[in-house]
């Protein structure tokens, strides 16, 4: 590695590249959540409450994902039931 390369490689490690990387991740995340309907957190909470009437599930057992492409919107609900399903009486 020549003297010039040493300078160059040092240069590339400037803080600007760190800034760019951080921003790209942040902006991608912000944009993914930007168009989500605002009712999603409440929906997730209520679904969880309903399920917990019947099954003892963890607080994180329900995940709600919202995706959008040009032609459709997909609302994906994922409920993780415990292995030995213990149903509550009722």
């Amino acid at each position, binding site marked *: 590695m020549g003297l010039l390369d040493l300078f160059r490689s040092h240069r590339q*490690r400037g803080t600007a590249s760190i800034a*760019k990387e951080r921003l790209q991740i942040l902006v991608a995340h912000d*944009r993914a959540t930007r168009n989500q309907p605002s009712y999603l957190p409440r929906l997730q909470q209520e679904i969880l409450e309903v399920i917990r009437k019947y099954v003892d599930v963890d607080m994180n057992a329900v995940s709600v994902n919202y995706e959008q492409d040009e032609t459709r919107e997909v609302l994906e609900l994922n409920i993780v039931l415990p292995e030995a399903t213990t149903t509550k009486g009722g």
Partner: protein
Amino acid sequence: MGKTTTSAALAMGLAQRGHRTAVIDFDVGLRNLDLIMGCERRVVYDFVNVINGEANINQALIRDKRCDALYVLPASQTRDKDALTKDGVGRVLEELSKTFDYIVCDSPAGIEHGAHMAMYYADDAVVVTNPEVSSVRDSDRMLGILSSKSRRAERNEAPIREYLLLTRYAPERVAKGEMLSVNDVREILSLDLLGVIPESKAVLNASNSGVPVILDTESDAGQAYHDAVGRYLGEDLPHRFLEIKKKGFFSRLMGG
């Protein structure tokens, strides 16, 4: 980030090319456009007076002394942030659009009511950004609001045309890897580039003396704003001031 400096410069640039232009300060409570334009002592009525019917639009508009085609509508210094009603702003813009070719709305910082009012009726938006992480992130937030909270979005019309204007750019710091480059910012925000304004002493000198920096035709910032106006009007101009100004003997030796 230079929103008011930019509003003043773009409005003056449009007016200098013969377009009747009004520039409106939307920063209620923190009026500053009048100061940057150098007409602070001629303010009698303001934007909120017009909205409330306490003055008509012609009484409130201040004609620029340097350019006949340019008028300034100052913000109110009231503390009431909600003084700008959506209907009121719409009425004023509607009336102005009958006699003006361009209306430049100088948005306050943040995403509160004033900023929302400034962008709500817009056809075009110039997002003013510094090459700095918080500024770039805020700009992306603003882009999200532009695409979802405008009248055009509510009416399912064609979206607001968005342009990027990068200010306080320091090519020598970019070369050292200390500052995001114009291409970095453009890539992150994926926006059309209207202009790059170099970090310049001329900007502070201009605001000190109440002269829009675009009138300082000797300065790099003034010329960069002049180019930005030209691009906005459809001229195909190469971007200047992106490279380090004078290459010294030493840096040439290093082949940087």
